């Protein structure tokens, strides 16, 4: 997979696996597209960016499978947006998606992820010997690494921890788990009680929050392709539709209020396997490839004290390989992605072409296109 990175006044064309600059020229059409559609930032303005960029891609490439991701509700809530203002934002995004699907004849699947509830408390320190680790933004899911045997009892006594799952239990249940999964899996995975948020080692954003992520057992889904009971079914449903000649648009809208009404036309759909409620990378992989969290190389929580220098896919977050069997990689199916989520989606989808924002911490650094070699050659 190749990557074209645009930082505003300068572009570089790289092999996404090595990060090294390619000596072939970038496809001019793609260079123009990035130049003319720079990611405008995480505000509401980028809702239009997703739509406009999708329309450009449809006119350039007419993908059978088109994936769109929206993160604006997450950022809007992080900057204090209240529930009453969130609903119009959601409506606007949903209307945009439905309009696009109507005008371009796509079947529609919309998944709302990243449930949030009012914060009760942040869990910053645990009285354990093991180290509490979570995502940079804080999360309802955390890991404990470097644990000693006494830690388990301490964890079980904490009223704000809903579930404690040991590495041993996970790996006993899934002896076939990938080596990378086993290496990075912490000693314990911890699920916070509703309304509680873990902070800890590697927490980047120290601002106290008003909302907590929720490990949601079910999430709102809209589908013109039938009514799945669990999001794991969506992969098969979309695959069938594509193989039967239909065009399918999958949209993921991140950040909704679990305590608000489910948008009209949506139904609640299972989002949990065993103890784990899908979120982030694992959820994207489940949607795009039908793989459960334990079937991927990426554990739901990382033991980052063991972090090794990444030698492959330096612009692709935790990814160490291109996922196989994705909807983006179905033979004979043209596929594309437009994403306002950085790093994850171009890999999770493994589509022919992906246009994403490129962000680090809180800053938008530019726009990136990921393109399969074959398509790059044909566009050159």
């Amino acid at each position, binding site marked *: 997979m190749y990557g074209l990175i645009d930082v505003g006044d300068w572009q570089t064309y790289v092999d996404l696996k090595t990060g090294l600059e390619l000596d072939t020229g970038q496809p001019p059409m793609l260079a123009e597209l990035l130049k003319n559609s720079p990611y405008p930032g995480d505000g509401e303005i980028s809702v239009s960016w997703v739509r406009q960029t999708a329309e450009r891609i449809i006119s350039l490439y007419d993908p059978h499978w088109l994936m769109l991701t929206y993160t604006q509700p997450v950022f809007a809530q992080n900057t204090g947006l209240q529930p009453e203002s969130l609903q119009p934002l959601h409506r606007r995004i949903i209307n945009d998606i439905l309009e696009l699907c109507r005008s371009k004849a796509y079947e529609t699947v919309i998944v709302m992820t990243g449930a949030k509830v009012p914060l009760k408390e942040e869990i910053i320190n645990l009285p354990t010997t093991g180290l509490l680790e979570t995502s940079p933004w*804080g999360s309802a899911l955390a890991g404990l690494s470097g644990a000693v045997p006494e830690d388990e009892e301490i964890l079980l006594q904490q009223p704000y921890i809903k579930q404690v799952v040991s590495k041993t239990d996970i790996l006993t249940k899934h002896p076939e788990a990938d080596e990378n999964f086993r290496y990075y899996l912490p000693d314990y995975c911890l699920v916070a009680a509703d309304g509680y948020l873990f902070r800890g080692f590697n*927490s*980047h*954003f*120290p601002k106290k929050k008003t909302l907590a992520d929720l490990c949601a057992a079910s999430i709102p889904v809209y589908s013109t392709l039938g009514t799945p009971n669990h999001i794991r079914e969506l992969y098969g449903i979309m695959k069938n539709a594509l193989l039967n000649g239909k065009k399918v648009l999958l949209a993921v809208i991140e950040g909704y209020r679990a305590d608000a009404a489910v948008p009209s036309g949506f139904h609640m759909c299972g989002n949990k396997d065993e103890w784990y409620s899908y979120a982030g990378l694992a959820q994207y992989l489940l949607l795009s490839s039908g793989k459960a969290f334990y079937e991927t190389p990426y554990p739901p929580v990382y033991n980052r004290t063991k972090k090794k*220098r990444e030698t492959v896919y*330096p*612009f692709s977050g935790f990814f160490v390989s291109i996922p196989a069997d994705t909807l983006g990689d179905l033979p004979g199916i043209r596929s594309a992605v437009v994403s306002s989520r950085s790093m994850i989606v171009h890999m999770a989808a493994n589509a022919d072409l992906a246009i994403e924002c*490129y962000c680090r911490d809180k800053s*938008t650094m530019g726009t990136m296109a990921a393109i399969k070699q074959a398509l790059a050659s044909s566009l050159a």
Partner: protein
Amino acid sequence: MNCNYCEWRCSLTRGEGRCRMYTFKDGVIQEKYPFTWSRCQAEEIEKVPIFHFLPDERILQLGSFNCNASCAYCMNASIAEPQQELATFVLQPEQVVTLAKRGQYKIIHFGINEVTVSLPSALKIAALARQNGILTGCSTNGFLTEEAAAAAAAAFDFFNLSLKSLQDSFYRQHLGLPTVAPVLRNIRYLAQHTHLEITTPITKDNEGEIPALAAWLASVNKKIPWHLFRLLPAHKLEHAAPPAVMTLVNTVTALEDKPYYIYIGNFVGSKWVNTHCRHCGETVITRLSDGACGARLQANYLKQDLCPHCGSRQDIVVEVNKCTA
């Protein structure tokens, strides 16, 4: 009683000082929030950026909060000038060192915000780290007093110092600091006493100063690595455009009087973060810029600290004896 950690030398008799981190109590200057951090994370040393000291080493990075400056374009304003309550945590020196040992980090780095505002905590951790064979370093704006700079130089093994300009007017207007003079004094001092690398955030307001900055740094020591950051202005200047990449590259290419090692980064995909042997010009270390701050090491071709092409010694610390973790 005046605080002697930075050149504001605030009177603490009736307050907490400009950075709000120190107080005068029981006859001594005390930290208000000792060993209190807003961030503790795993990183690579190149991300600081530090390119010429133990390449490829993992670091345990600690940051506190608040600052003694108020940069208009600050990338970390939510930590340096927090307007809302922060989620902080306490890690005592023993806990930090235990964490470093458990994660097999050879280096603890104080960064994210200005180390000066939590200097006593950082110095105590550095002392305990050294007893345990762990190295320490820090990032600073360099506005320390002479005595604080001396204490820090004795305690830490490396510094990344951010020199923003040579002009007092720039420091006043963009950083809220009265003068650059102590920063320049401290650079001269630190260059003689410890491993020092300099970062200069470049905006459209100081890109014209690159030749003067290069000449001044070269006059101190040409071996000091210099990191030019194409700054994405944030905070009060978030709508300002960053400087153009090729303008920076062309300006640096045209420099005559300059340090040996100039890196241009802080944007994704930068091709100007590799180290070349200053004797034969061959590439000795390649790095990859994934965006914010420094870079990540891609390949290290050094033979110990020698150029694999011409065999000459490189200006890169590849081994520190006291490091045993």
